[in-house]
């Protein structure tokens, strides 16, 4: 069936089943591959996108539930918070393998959009759903603080 999806401000007519996870609609149908597959059950956060501004695990969100909503992926983030996060990520050399980092950045950007000066505990709470097997966590914490400083 046909589903209309708004991704990064662009409308896409997708021929897919309504139970297809948003993740696979984005990756295999819209063909934006920055959003990653890590677990398929909302345990690792690699698939995090913004749906109407809220960080959302796209691997367990049926595409039918996302129709008509504003979906933002790593390729389409433009907010000052998101840009500050990306800059801090590069400045502090956060990524190692990099596979989880799209999801990390989407979670961090959403955090700073809600709370521009998060505490350590708030950072941990917002980011503990995002696994990084390279364990770049210490730098993620530092980079979020650096981005927060830049936004202040």
């Amino acid at each position, binding site marked *: 069936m046909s589903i209309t999806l708004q991704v990064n401000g662009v409308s896409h007519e997708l021929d*897919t*089943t309504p139970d*297809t*996870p948003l993740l*696979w609609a984005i*990756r*295999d*149908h819209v*063909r*934006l*591959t*920055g*959003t*990653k*597959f*890590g*677990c*398929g*059950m909302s*345990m*690792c956060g*690699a698939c995090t996108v913004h749906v109407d501004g809220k960080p959302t695990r796209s691997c367990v969100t049926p595409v039918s539930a996302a129709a008509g909503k504003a979906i933002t*992926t*790593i*390729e389409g983030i433009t907010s000052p918070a998101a840009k500050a996060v*990306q800059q801090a*990520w*590069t400045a502090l*050399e*956060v*990524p*190692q*393998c*990099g*596979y*989880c*980092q*799209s999801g990390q*950045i989407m979670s961090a950007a959403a955090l700073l959009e809600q709370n521009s000066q998060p505490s350590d505990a708030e*950072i*941990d*709470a917002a*980011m*503990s*759903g*995002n*696994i*990084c*097997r*390279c*364990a*770049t*966590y*210490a*730098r*993620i*914490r530092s980079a979020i603080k650096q981005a927060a400083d830049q936004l202040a």
Partner: protein
Amino acid sequence: MRRNLSNGHQGLVSSRRDFLKLVTTVGAGLTLAMNLPVALAADAAVTVTAGDFEPNAFVRIGTDNSVTVIMKHLEMGQGTFTGLATLLAEELDADWSQVVAEGAPADAARYNNLNWGTMQGTGGSSAMANSFLQMRTAGATARAMLIEAAAQRWKVPATEIQVSQGILSHAASGNSAAFGELVELAAQQPIPDAQSLRLKDPADFAYIGQSLPRLDRGKTDGSALFTQDLQLEGMLTALVAHPPRFGGKVKQFDAAKALVSPGVVDVVQIPSGIAVLATDFWSAKKGRDLLSIDWDESAAFAGSTDDILREYRALAEQPGAVARTDGDATEALANATTVVEAVFDMPYLAHAAMEPMNAVALVNDAGCEIWNGEQFHTVDQATVAAALGLKPEQVKINMLLAGGSFGRRANPHSDYVLEAAQIAKARRGTPVKLVWTREDDTRAGYYRPLYVHKVRAGLDASGNPVAWEQRIVGQSIGKGTAFEAFIVKDGIDATSVEGASTLPYQIPNMQVELHTVDQGVPVQWWRSVGHTHTAFSTEVIIDELARAAKQDPVDFRLKLLAQHPRHLGVLKLAAEKADWGSELPKGWGRGVAVHESFNSFVAQVAEVSVQDNGSFKVERVVCAVDCGLAINPDIIRAQMEGGIGFGLSAALLSEITLKDGQVVQSNFHDYQVLRINQMPTIEVHIVPSAEPPTGVGEPGTPPIAPAVANALSAVTGQRFQHLPLKLNS
């Protein structure tokens, strides 16, 4: 624009003459576009006499000033692209902004790991060590030819020409030129003899020792290309139903429902199971769920972790094959004043890289082309060639970035790469992307083996260690692989005992024994290999000996390491920076461990806090590392941080268990790994050194589990002989 991608334009340099031709003809064709070549490489295959030194296989300079460094090692997060390019750019005097990374093809004649003889691959934390002179010489060669070109054009003596940051200049005449302006003329210069090249004095290094920005960009905007992201014209996605127990086979299957499921294109049987091919992942997943498969489990593994532990513990009571003998440990133990004894067990572990295993393969008349986070070029090439009835050179491999590996993508049996090739063989002419789900990745095998260690160690009346007897029980990683001849000697798999057989402490009577057990559970190296378990048992026992001798754990080690200056160096530095011996808050404890692996030396001091409810937290880790000359200090720090975090997953959380032959865990809810709220503060200190560089990908991992266990012992008095660590309530 993406970098690090295809091999389609790469410098297939088979001879010095070809290098000249290449530099001349490639011209500006250096910035690689996104389109990946589907063409097969049989026509591009080249032959070089093994052992030829071909520095020019590593660099290509374009008229657009780009300096493309060809990477023979996989970038899986450890920073190897940056490190290799730093070495080459240093001697070339390139500007860092003009340097671009590109993966090398499978061609062991030119891109072999010099530490591995004739094999090409990445592992054992060997990239910097084996490439240190090779990449520098490659850079120096290109530099010398550019200088010769400038000397000719400007009609000035070559010795008067300076090179700095990508610009050649001649002060007296006022001439200057960027690399790109001279490439054509440079290509006509004779290649200088390697012996005639003078590499820089370390005092003149401009890049080595600086923390240059990483080259593997695209990791903050979604543009970095992993195997999972590859899209080729007409490509199908394949998911495989694997047997529920290791060694199971397909008896019969019914694919009727799967074949009529939307998006499913084909269902094929391969040796490892049944593959469902579809237009996209979700269709393939739904199709796989609709398969009905009758498995033949007559030869399948049916054991359980409890049975394995019982068997291993019994074996640990019996003498094993001898891996090391100094003096007479049996007699010395009989005469010792105090004997410390412990039986350790450490579970199977999955690598659980964030990118589940995957590979893209295309089979057609020319051969087989593979796209993969390629860690084991020569093994994969040979294995796929043999299985498909091809010559190795008909298997072209494109090395893409890997979303982690921790050893998993260097599978000695090429398991998932072969699986992709076998599916593609059944759909000739169609590119097939094999995707493993997280459940496949967790359950389809290749684990760090489960080990049991029994250690007995004795002190004399003065508190000096006089005896050490250690028995290690577990599966061999090397047995039955192409590496057996190198790894297994006289019945001892070096990767089962490393770290124990090489224990550096001054103990006059020492015996290390091994029981190698065949088990139907597939095993493989896992970040730092044998050191993952030997560092734990040995460093916990050393701490227990110190406690029995009523000595400070750092002082005790320093005394026993007097002959090992590099161990001493990291131990002293870590203790000093951690303010060892200072007061800690109530309920906190401090523990230390020091361990050498892959010729690098690492000491860590861990601070833990124990709560009243019996839970605990690792609060802080101070790490000191000696990896010889530090090529990129920030990447060294990052690898120590990551190695500690990776080791903490195993120390605190992760465990693969088996029940009646089935893997119990399936995804991150029950195979737990470290999350940000569990990550301690980490400080890394690098010992200044002029020794040749060694690796940093693995050595950060081994010391953390024992350092944490020792810290927990310091605060609770409990003993720890099991991983993951658990406090008794």
